[in-house]
Each structure stands twice: as structure tokens, then as C-alpha cells.
């Protein structure tokens, strides 16, 4: 992988001493390390400086300006943040995002747990797992379009079926009440298989003999699930939960393709709001201020994630 992109230079330290005198050899190697290390790090450090560190500083600076992408940014202090406090659309975006996160994470986690348990207790089939992974592999744009078509008010298959069952038709993406649950359901469809596989992998770590002895003791499946699987899965489950939580705060593609924040702001999530402010209205300064708020929220969640990451690693090691 990537072999064609770099040509190996001749050995840099070809003259390294052979084992005869270990002490000087070590010292020599340490000195070589320093030069080699910075060469190894050069691409990553340039990338980090240019596209992570610099934009982070820049983003905070923009949030204190009235930048509109065309003229030079003018410093306005905390104006954007003051405006943000009185901005109903911003609070609505937070509320709508929260609603989505709860709906999506709730349904996705419960379904994924069910699926993972069923797989764990029934089959090890790789083909089955691969099939469950397909919706995750597909771009969210495609997922959005396919479901827009399936749920179309006039010609969509789902409404045809509902009609045939005498339940009437629903404009899923166009009804203010239905739009957000529909988006949440679509993304649950897209990510449940993936989440289930992560949980399944966690379940494989649970020693099999626990189930065997529980079965000998006459424990039923439900008892095994609540007394063995769930407690032992907790670190993995917590990690998966936080990762999906952070992910679902950043929902954008599906909204951009299906509802575009509508109807009447029912699905104008925070990510989409930032996008609109920056690239539709050219309020780059204001968009940056909203992004700072989102960054703080996600930063806290990520800190939790990193803690869990460390915790779960030491658990399994």
C-alpha cells in the first residue's frame, strides 16, 4: 500500500558500528534517531500544523470577527457570541440536534444490541456479518436518496404498502412532525449493522464457558443476557455508545440531501445550521462562533471517549 509513492533512500546509517562495543553503539544510534525521527514525522507534522493546528486558531479568531469570505475579517469582539444567545434558530438547532441524537442513539443501540446477541448465540457466519455492513459502506448521500424514493409521498413503495394496509399515506420527509423521526430512522438503518458488529466483537471476548455453565444451571437466554453478556460487555458498550453519540451530533449529509433543514426548521441541526450560515449566507464569523460552541460540546464527549478508550484497552489486555 502506497509503495509507489515513496522511493526508499539508501541506508542512512550504513556505517553503524557492529556489535563490538555496545556502549558507543547505543549512543551512536540515539544520535541517529533524532534526525531520522524528524524525517519520519515531517509529513504528519506539516499536515498537522497546516490543517489542524492553524485552522483551529484561525477558527477561534474568525468567531471574533464579521468575516464574510469576501472582504477581510474585522474584529468585533464577542459580538457573535452575544448574538448567538438571542438567536432562536441557534437554540432550535441545539434542540433539534438533541432530539435527533436521542432518537437515533436510542433505537440504534437497542437494535444493535439485539442483533449482536442473536448473532452471538446463533451463528458465526462472515457472509451474514458482511451483509449487515453494507449500509454502513454506502455514502450517506446514497442512503438518503434511496430512502427518499422508498418514502416518497406519491410513488414510494412504503406508502404503497401502507395504503394497501389501509393506513393511508404519509409525507415522511415533508411533515414537520415526521421529518426528524424519519431522518433518525434512516440513519438507524444505515448504522445499526455496523454498531451491532462492534458489539458482537465485544461479545466474542466474553468467555464461552460462562454461558455453558449458566446453561447447565438452567439459566434461560434472558438471564444469560442480563447476568453475563450485559455486565461483561459494559466497557465496550460504553465506548460504542460515546463514539456513536459523537458521530450523531455531526449529522449533515442525510439532512443536506433529504430535508435541507426543513420543513419549518424541524431538521435544521447544528451542523447544517453552521453550513448554511457559512456558505449560503456567508456569515463566516457567526458560523465559526456556533462551531466553537459545538466544538466545546464535542470536546467534552471526546475526552470521555479517550478515557474510555484507555479504560477498555487495559481491560482487555
Amino acid at each position, binding site marked *: *500500500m*502506497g509503495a*509507489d509513492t515513496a522511493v*526508499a533512500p539508501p*541506508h*542512512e546509517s*550504513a*556505517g*553503524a558500528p*557492529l556489535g563490538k562495543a555496545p556502549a558507543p553503539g547505543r549512543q551512536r544510534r540515539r544520535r541517529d*534517531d*533524532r534526525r531520522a*525521527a524528524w524525517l*519520519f*514525522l515531517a*509529513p*504528519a507534522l506539516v499536515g*498537522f500544523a*497546516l*490543517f489542524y493546528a*492553524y*485552522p*483551529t486558531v*484561525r*477558527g477561534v479568531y474568525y468567531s471574533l470577527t464579521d468575516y464574510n469570505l469576501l472582504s477581510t475579517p474585522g474584529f468585533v469582539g464577542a459580538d457573535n457570541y452575544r448574538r448567538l444567545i438571542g438567536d432562536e434558530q441557534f437554540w432550535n438547532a441545539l434542540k433539534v440536534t438533541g432530539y435527533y441524537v436521542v432518537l437515533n442513539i436510542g433505537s440504534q443501540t437497542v437494535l444493535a444490541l439485539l*442483533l449482536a446477541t442473536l*448473532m452471538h*448465540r*446463533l451463528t458465526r457466519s*462472515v457472509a451474514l456479518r458482511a*451483509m*449487515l*455492513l*453494507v449500509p454502513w*459502506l454506502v*455514502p*450517506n*448521500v*446514497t442512503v438518503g*436518496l*434511496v430512502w427518499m*424514493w*422508498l418514502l416518497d409521498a*406519491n*410513488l414510494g*413503495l412504503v406508502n404503497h404498502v401502507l395504503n394497501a394496509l389501509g393506513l393511508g399515506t404519509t409525507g415522511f420527509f415533508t411533515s414537520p412532525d415526521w421529518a426528524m423521526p424519519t431522518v433518525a430512522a434512516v440513519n438507524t438503518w444505515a448504522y445499526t449493522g*455496523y454498531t451491532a458488529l462492534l458489539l458482537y*466483537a465485544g461479545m466474542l471476548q466474553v468467555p464461552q464457558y460462562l454461558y455453558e455453565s449458566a446453561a447447565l444451571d438452567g439459566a434461560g437466554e434472558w438471564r444469560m443476557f442480563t447476568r453475563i453478556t450485559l455486565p461483561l460487555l459494559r466497557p465496550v458498550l460504553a*465506548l460504542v455508545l460515546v463514539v456513536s453519540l459523537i458521530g450523531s451530533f*455531526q449529522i449533515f*449529509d442525510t439532512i*443536506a*440531501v433529504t430535508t435541507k433543514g426543513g420543513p419549518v426548521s424541524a431538521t435544521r441541526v447544528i*451542523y447544517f445550521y*453552521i*453550513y448554511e450560515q457559512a456558505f449560503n449566507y456567508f456569515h463566516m464569523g457567526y458560523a*465559526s462562533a456556533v*462551531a466553537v460552541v459545538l*466544538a466545546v460540546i464535542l470536546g467534552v464527549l*471526546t475526552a470521555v471517549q479517550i478515557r474510555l478508550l484507555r479504560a477498555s484497552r487495559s481491560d482487555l489486555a
Partner: protein
Amino acid sequence: MTRIRTKVSPGRIAAWTVLVIALFVTVFPFYWMVRTALTPAADLYTDSTGLVPDHPTMINFLRVLGLTSQEEAQAAGGSGAHVDFLRYLLNSVVYSGLIAALQTLFCAMAGYAFARLRFPGRDAVFGVLIAALMVPPIFTVLPNFVLVKNLGWLNTFTGMVAPSVLMTPFAVFFLRQFFLSIPRDVEEAAVLDGVGAWGIFWRVVMPMSRGPLITIGLTTTVWAWKDYLWPLLTGREEQTRVLTVALGIFQQQSPNTQPDWTGLMAGSALSVLPVLVLLIVLGRRLVESLNFTGMK
């Protein structure tokens, strides 16, 4: 055999039923996508429930691939705007291929330096790099867009891949973690043979790390393949338009009040096809990768 038989209980049947339903719900929308792509646009109002189209046709695929004349495309329900999904498909392959190959290489180099080479300030530099995991993408997207625009890189592959081609904190973290687990003895022998750091990395460590490298390469490919916002901002023009962006634009070019569903589903099918090939060729690997990274 008898042991298996005793296991056939109502509970097991119910469990299998749920699993099969889940599979059906997972796969059926893709079937319906292809089915619609094979339906003539004119039939959409009369023939939208049968499992197989009444008059199957390839015209929708041909017209979104830009293989028909404009009149033919319009007659088949197109907007008359120029579309060439073959081009977008290729752009997507270039975009995700470049990012996956280069990012994997550069992050492996960095991960190796952090795991194995001794230099002053190593832990501090690593800490700062990993702290970037805390910054959500949308936050850097805004200034990165300005930067790429000011560099004159809009609508070039350079601008599109620039932010992700050199590093992502996660890949560095992940690969470093793996390199730490390689026993030092393996390198000692190479050191005694007078091989330098680059030689050890390239000829000893990289070949030993095929699993994790493929894992990172694959997840990065999938991530780049699905990417929408960044290419939407930096690569809207024909020559750099990737599939996801093309689908979004195509959706808005509908000739009637109804979207051009048959064309859209043909385009959507094209965006699934390469991923499906990847899954068929590397299915086991991909599934195992997932167990491995867990958090991307």
C-alpha cells in the same frame, strides 16, 4: 445431528426469524434501488409496486453514464443537463485512493517514529497531535476552506485531498499502538546488520504490519468514499466532482416537479457498486478490520 436437533426450539426459530427480517430490511432497499434504475421513467406512475419491472431497460444507466445523446436522455426522463457518472466514479476512485494510500504511509511513518525512535519532546509532540481528536471536523472545515481557496486550490485534487492526505490523528494513534506491540528483538537483528531507521521501517516493520495497515487503509478508503461536505465545498466542478457531490447536484437538476427517480437510482447504484466489489473481494478482511479498529 441429534444434538443440533435438540436445539431446534421455538425460541431459536423466533431468533432466526428476527435475524432474517433484519437482513431483509438491510438488503431490500438496495434491491429496490436497482429495480427502479431498471424501470423506464415513463412507467414510474403505472409500475411502481411489482418486484420486477414490466419493461426492464438499461437506458437509465446509459444516460447517467453519459453514453446517450442529449435527446435520448431527455426522452428517458433526464433534465438535459450534462451528466457523466463514469467521470465522477473515476474522480471518487482517485480521491479515496490518494487519501487512503498516502495517509496510511505518512501515518505509519509518524506512528513508527512515536513508537520506536527516541528523540527529545516525543511524548509532548504526540500529546499535541492526539489532542486534535477533540476538534470536530466542521470546526476546521471553515478555515481550511478559506486556506484552500486562498491557495487557489479550489476544484483541484490537491485542495480536495490536502487536509487528510498527510495525517489524521486517529491513524497515527492506531498505528503507533500496533508498532509498540512489535518485539524489539526483531529490529535488533537488523540494527546489527547495519540497517538504518528507514531500512528497518520499510523492510522489517512495514511487512510485519500488513494487517493493521490494511485495516487503516480500508477504513480510510470507505470514509473518503462516503465523504460529502468537503468535496462539496472544494470540488464542485466537473473535473473534480466525486460521486456523492454529483448525486446531490443531479438531484437538483430534475426536469419536473418530481425528481428524476430512475436516473437518481441508476446513479446511486453506481455509488454502491465499487463498495460492493470491495466487500466481495475483501469481505472477511473488512469484517475483521472492524473488530480491530472499533472506533472510526
